[in-house]
């Protein structure tokens, strides 16, 4: 383990065992997050981003889900071998998570203050009065007046609720914050505010951040490193600058091409043709082959593994690697 490493995920495999089929949601994902590092995890819906994140907290709904392989190490501790009781001490304390939809992620029958207080009293020995004080401080920290402690979620807007959820996740100074599409359900005008808030507080508490999103622009602004996920595998990863300047994987190229651009006069966006393969029935080779413009015979048979093409820049693609080696 490297000195600076906080989280390491190795060869993670998660499957959902349904009645008639087995959904292979995550298929051998490996990555590390260093202390204080901000990592963006990008991919389309169904790529396995949320499942990966939930695996870190061991919150995969089981059944039907199950981590079938891999190790997750947090601060040198193997989470796969940690008891459920100890996992509870990690959740919300060492690793916390902000969820996608603030409208449904707060209990409607509990005051927002009590929902913040809950996590504080679970992970500290403070007296009730102290936890209330701390919960109010957290509310103020995310820009909500402390006197709104006794109000219920339905009295808040979506953006405010997301602030409350941020307060909950930061209340115990976690070492790692997982933000699962924290702005997808919000108005565009609120998105920037919430992202800024997360970025500010992350800096303040010097946390590591795993930001799940499908917005490449957000990653460029807030992250040090990017990982691109496709059908349960990481297909490209590296420092944001390096990757954005020198995109290698045809899927990533497709993602960038499908962004609207201001500098070119076009009428239509360019989507990636086709669909992500059915996770019940993955092809043996590269899962992107039937959407890929550079497909070769080899791609259909053999699974490409991540290989380094530049400084810390990894790509899982035969085409990209060939190109790289012939160039250099």
């Amino acid at each position, binding site marked *: 383990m490297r000195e600076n490493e906080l989280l390491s995920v190795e060869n993670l495999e998660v499957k959902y065992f349904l009645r008639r089929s087995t959904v292979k949601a995550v298929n051998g994902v490996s990555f590390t997050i260093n202390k204080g590092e901000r990592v963006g995890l990008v991919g389309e819906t169904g790529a396995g981003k949320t499942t990966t994140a939930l695996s870190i*907290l061991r919150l995969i709904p089981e059944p039907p889900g199950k981590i079938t392989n891999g190790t997750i190490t947090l601060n040198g501790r193997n989470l796969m071998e940690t008891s459920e009781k100890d996992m509870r001490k*990690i959740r919300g304390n060492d690793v916390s998570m902000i969820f996608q939809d603030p409208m449904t992620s707060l*209990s409607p029958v509990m005051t927002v203050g009590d929902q913040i207080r809950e996590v504080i009293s679970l992970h500290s020995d403070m007296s009730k009065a102290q936890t209330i004080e701390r919960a109010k401080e957290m509310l103020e920290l995310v820009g909500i007046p402390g006197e709104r402690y006794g109000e219920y979620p339905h009295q808040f807007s979506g953006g405010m609720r997301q602030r409350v959820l941020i307060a909950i996740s930061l209340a115990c100074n976690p070492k790692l914050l997982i933000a699962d599409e924290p702005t997808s359900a919000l108005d565009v005008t609120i998105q920037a505010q919430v992202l800024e808030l997360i970025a500010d507080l992350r800096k303040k508490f010097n946390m590591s951040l795993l930001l799940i999103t499908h917005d490449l622009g957000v990653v460029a602004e807030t992250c040090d490193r990017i990982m691109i996920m496709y059908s349960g595998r990481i297909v490209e990863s590296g420092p944001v600058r390096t990757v954005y300047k020198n995109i290698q994987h045809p899927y990533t190229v497709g993602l960038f091409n499908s962004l609207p651009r201001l500098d070119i006069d076009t009428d239509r966006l360019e989507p990636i043709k086709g669909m992500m393969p059915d996770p019940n029935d993955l092809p043996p080779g590269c899962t992107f082959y039937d959407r890929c413009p550079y497909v070769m015979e080899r791609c259909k048979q053999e699974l490409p593994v991540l290989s380094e093409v530049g400084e810390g820049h990894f790509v899982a693609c035969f085409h990209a690697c060939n190109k790289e080696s012939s160039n250099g």
Partner: protein
Amino acid sequence: MLRYIIKRLIYMVVTLLATVVFLFTLMEFVPGDPALVVLGEGATDENIVAIHKELKLDDPYIVRLSRYVGNLVQGDMGNSYKTRQPIAPALFARLPLTMTIAVWGIIFGTIIGLVAGVVSAVKQYSLFDRVLTAISLFGASAPSFWLAMLFVLIFTLKLGWLPATGSYTFKHWILPIATIGLQASASITRMTRSSMLEVIRQDYVRTARAKGQTQFRVVVSHGLRNAFIPILTVIGTNINGYLGGTVLVESVFAIPGLGNYVLDGVKTMDTPVVLNGVVFICFMCTIVTFLVDMAYAFIDPRIKSTYGFGTKKFKRARLAKAIEGGTAG
């Protein structure tokens, strides 16, 4: 909140009034001369006329109805045809026994139903869940009198453990309470299970887990609390159902409660007894419904705030602040 209470109270009064008018009218269609019921066989014509005069039976329908409602409001339910005694004291004398059995039955039913429903939902598709679902389907569909007779057959006739009829000792109460409890628990289990299944997949339950909350607390304080509104409705319906069905259970076990009092009235054509008995049961049902409505507001803050739970002043203050500060929350 006050507006909510007043609204529910008005509903309650209107419901009651409509029920009383309906029942009174229904009794008009009962065949036979009440005077014959009072006098029995072999009454002379003079006596019949005298009774008609005494009970003011020849007054027009609308006069008798308004007289009845007027007396009822003052707590006077009139006299029984048969015994010539006032009905109200007789009714109230039988109330404690019926209530005891009903309340215990509902308490047991609720506890069993909640626990079974929650466990069933958390362990969905397990063997426990399947067996329980089958039992509760059976319990919910079996009529109470049939269930009562089944219990008598098993526990009294076959095993000889418990007495079948009467209400003298605690032992006598077990079977009626079990009958009511089982029926109540069956429907409460079913509702708890389906309501919990819905809630347990909600995002806020996942949030609670992500906080590091224990499984028990996640299920109870985040799950059950949110699942409780539909469950509460079923509990209320069960209490009302029992109050209405009390006639059946009490007659099987020969319990001298409210139900049997009404049943005796039916058997002897004692229409005032039947009328007042049913009106009284309806009255209790509306009270239960009212209490359930009140409980909703306490469980679900959204109902409370729809009716402005003392927030008017607060809202105005906040608005003023927002205008002043230029930024609204």
